[in-house]
């Protein structure tokens, strides 16, 4: 009970009730204290409900009566199931007050529920603190500069804000701890000793590198963001494509570099190739080709640009004529620009002349064009014809050579025609047989080799499947590793955060003592429950025994009764024994009855004793005295009020 009271008093103190230091248990609560506690609790639980109530008891009796009624009503509205009325507050008794206060304290809203919902993590904490700071600063009203206190000056000036300027920083690549380097004796970074010297002796620290001090954070952020994204990109790419290509990281990087370089070259090349076809862009095209040649592989590029099918060459021919014509025309036009001080007729005559000459030129050019076209056609057609003839002649040549060869050999054999024919046939058959023989031998060698080849191919494809399966497994493992690493990091952050929170919590109440006590109580209750069940089972056993014994008794008695009764008719002694038996039975039953009655009476005694105790605790007598006094006071007030009314 002490613990419960302490908890209650502590919670009431938290709601704002002024509980004195010497008040240790609910028994000592006065009516004023009770009312104040209940009102404050109500205010916390439900501000609407509690706002109309006053925490202190008014002196007048009727007023007190009213306050008690309204408090009782409020508590019932909240949902208190027990019996409650004005008497609970004015004439209190311990158990009722305790249960009411416990109900109210339980209803108090819990603050701890909020804290557990908040996200964990260092960055979240940082963001929360930033948000809190900004909120606090925004909450302050803006004051004009002359009215500001120095503290406000800092936050309300535009001074601290800067625009985001970033500059590239140079950092040495070797990020190992310097101490380790010294221990090992030789530098880790063996790429370039001069670079190391520069890094060590001349390179200014990062905070001094940007030209303006204000751009240091911006530059650092940008540098870090760049490095982070590059590292992440590399991770992603390596995990997705790099592993599949089954190369080492360096090989993969060098291949990628070569590939990208080729693509750039190709793009530049195609851009350079389209240039020469357009008029007037010769200059830029040649610049570009020079540039490409300087990249390396110069003969190739020149060849590719110069190479073209028949069609591009002919295009070039026709197009190169045009710029010349255009130039000529432009020159002619420039020449014929009239000077301002010549007369109109001269002008017109001149123009006519020029027109005629230009037309003549045009005709001549078109004539020559036609001629050239006709010549070209003729030439192509004759080329066709000639190449055709050539091919045919070559083919017929080879054919003729073959037939000449065969005929030569036949001529040799012609004199002795018949014989030779027979010999030839025999020869042919012989060689045919030999060839078939050889083929059979070859087959013996070939078949096992082919089988071997097939078997090895199968093995190879199986191995390829195996390796791709293992690759996918590796990828999965990678993913799992990264996932678990992330989780571990998160959990560690959370743990650190919770520890700091825990250390910051107030230590006035020892939760561990409470939790230990609670667990103890729970254990005790469990033990008691076990004992109760044991006792119950024992009782059941006993009851069963009793029942069986009574049953047995009845049956035995009935049997003996019958037996003896049968003989009792004849024999005198048996009749006597029968009477004794009956008397014995009756006395025993009476005994048993008395024992049972004793048991029930003892139980009643115990119940009554309990009731006496509870009644005693209710301090009814003092309450009755108080009630009588209050009743007298109310009567006096009533009479006073009545007198007042009569007077008025």
């Amino acid at each position: 009970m002490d613990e419960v009271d302490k908890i209650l008093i502590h919670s009431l103190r938290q709601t704002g009730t002024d509980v004195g230091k010497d008040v240790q248990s609910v028994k000592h609560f006065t009516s004023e204290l009770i009312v104040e506690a209940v009102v404050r609790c109500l205010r916390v639980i439900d501000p609407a409900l509690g706002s109309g109530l006053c925490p202190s008891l008014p002196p007048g009796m009727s007023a007190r009566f009213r306050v008690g009624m309204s408090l009782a009503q409020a508590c019932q509205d909240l949902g208190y199931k027990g019996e409650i009325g004005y008497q609970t507050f004015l004439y209190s008794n311990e158990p009722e007050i305790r249960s009411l206060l416990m109900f109210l304290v339980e209803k108090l809203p819990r603050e701890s529920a909020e804290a557990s919902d908040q996200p964990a993590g260092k960055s979240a904490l940082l963001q929360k603190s930033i948000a809190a700071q900004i909120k606090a600063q925004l909450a302050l009203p803006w004051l004009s500069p002359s009215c500001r206190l120095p503290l406000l000056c800092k936050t309300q000036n535009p001074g601290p804000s800067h625009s985001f300027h970033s500059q590239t920083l140079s950092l040495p690549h070797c990020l190992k701890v310097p101490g380790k380097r010294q221990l090992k004796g030789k530098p880790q970074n063996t790429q370039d000793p001069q670079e190391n010297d520069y890094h060590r002796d001349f390179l200014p620290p990062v905070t001094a590198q940007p030209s303006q001090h204000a751009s240091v954070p911006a530059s650092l952020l940008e540098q870090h963001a760049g490095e982070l994204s590059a590292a992440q990109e590399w991770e992603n790419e390596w995990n997705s494509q790099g592993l599949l290509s089954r190369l080492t990281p360096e090989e993969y990087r060098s291949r990628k570099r070569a590939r990208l370089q080729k693509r750039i070259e190709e793009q530049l090349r195609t851009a350079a190739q389209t240039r020469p076809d357009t008029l007037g862009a010769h200059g830029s095209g040649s610049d570009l080709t020079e540039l490409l040649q300087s990249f390396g592989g110069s003969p190739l590029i020149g060849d590719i640009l110069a190479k073209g099918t028949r069609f591009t060459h002919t295009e070039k021919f026709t197009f190169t004529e045009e710029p010349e014509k255009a130039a000529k025309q432009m020159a002619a036009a420039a020449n014929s620009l009239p000077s301002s001080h010549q007369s109109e007729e001269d002008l017109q005559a001149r123009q006519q002349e020029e027109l005629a000459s230009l037309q003549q030129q045009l005709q001549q050019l078109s004539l020559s064009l036609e001629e050239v076209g006709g010549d070209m056609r003729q030439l192509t057609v004759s080329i066709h014809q000639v190449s055709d003839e050539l091919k045919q002649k070559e083919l017929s040549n080879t054919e003729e050579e073959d037939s000449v060869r065969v005929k030569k050999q036949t001529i040799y054999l012609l004199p002795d025609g018949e014989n030779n024919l027979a010999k030839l046939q025999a020869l042919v058959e012989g060689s045919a047989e030999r060839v078939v023989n050889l083929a059979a031998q070859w087959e013996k060698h070939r078949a096992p080799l082919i089988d071997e080849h097939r078997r090895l191919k199968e093995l190879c494809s199986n191995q390829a499947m195996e390796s791709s399966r293992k690759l996918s497994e590796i990828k999965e493992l990678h993913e799992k590793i990264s996932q678990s690493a992330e989780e571990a990091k998160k959990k560690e952050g959370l743990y650190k955060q919770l520890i700091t929170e825990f250390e910051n919590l107030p230590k006035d109440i020892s939760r561990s003592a409470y939790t230990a006590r609670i667990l103890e109580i729970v254990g005790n209750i469990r033990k008691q429950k076990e004992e109760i069940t044991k006792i119950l089972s024992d009782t059941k056993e006993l009851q069963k025994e009793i029942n069986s014994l009574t049953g047995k008794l009845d049956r035995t008695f009935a049997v003996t009764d019958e037996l003896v009764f049968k003989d009792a008719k004849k024999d005198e002694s048996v009749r006597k024994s029968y009477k004794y038996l009956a008397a014995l039975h009756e006395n025993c039953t009476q005994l048993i009855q008395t024992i049972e009655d004793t048991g029930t009476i003892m139980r009643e005694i115990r119940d009554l004793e309990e009731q006496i105790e509870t009644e005693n605790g209710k301090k009814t007598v003092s309450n009755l005295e108080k009630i009588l006094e209050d009743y007298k006071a109310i009567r006096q007030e009533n009479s006073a009020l009545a007198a007042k009314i009569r007077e008025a």
Partner: protein
Amino acid sequence: MAAPETQLMLSVGLIEKDVNADTLWVWCYPSVSAELREVLLSKCCLRQDSRGLHTFVFGQFRRTWYYISTVEVQEPTALKKVQLVTHFSIVVTTKDFNPEKYAAFSRVLCRIYIKHGSPVKMMEGYIAVLTKGVCQSDENGSFLIKDYDVRKAYLAGSVKDVVSQFGMETIILYTALMLKKRIVVHHPQVEALLEFTRALPALTWHRKDWSILHPYVHLTDSELENLRTCTGYVAGFVDPEVSNRSDLFDVYVNLPDSEITISQSAKEAMSMGKLHKDIGLVIVQSAENADRTDGQIIKDISIKTREILANLASLAEECENSKITLETLKQRHFPPATENFLFHLAAAEQLLKI
């Protein structure tokens, strides 16, 4: 001794596909060059899993005709159990064009191979045909070379079908063939391609030249190089990409859509006029006549061709060296299209003065 025609056969080869879907060139006699082997492996339909089985395919490469018969091993023979072979193709390379003959021959060889499971027996059959011109086969009777005449092979293509599909546009094909231009035909199915293209050289029956026929070509470098060395050809492609390769053709025939297009560079040479209309009418009328067979249609066309050639020859005789020049043609005042056509035809028939 057998007639010199048997020297036309060059080699026989065997390609197998096993249960690992691996295609190998396993055996050949006497020998096949590595380049030709590559080409043949690509033509043989065993390499491409998605398409169906083409039982018989033929084509030309560097003046060598190849004929490929493919068979799926179905019955539980020695082949399937021991060697895990699922399909095989037999390739016969020759110098002459005769699809029927070599189809029958390769079928016989296939049957021998399935039955015995070893190429040795196949080789015996091949040598028998090579030396004696006769081979025993399991089906009815034996295979005799002399049953297959080359003229029959030339006439086996159906000109009637060509004319019925293209109607009057057949004259474009006729003109292109006469002028030794490059015709490219496209059809997604090999069999239809082979059927159609083999009939085209019959339109210029006076030349009887089937070496211009390349019925089954892929867009690979070696084959395209081979095509470029020929002045005029009829090439069949299954790859629809060929329509973008305008450097390969003067006339493009899209067989499934029945479209004929003339490429820009050849439009000038292939201009057609009244003469062409006449010839076209003759062709169409002859084909529409249900009583006339393919042979007769070809005959009609060749009669007309001979007329034109006779005309040209008479023109040539009047000139020096019996060679025609453009001026002689111009003197005759033919209509421009006819003049153009005769000019190019003279070049094709080697009657032009250089």
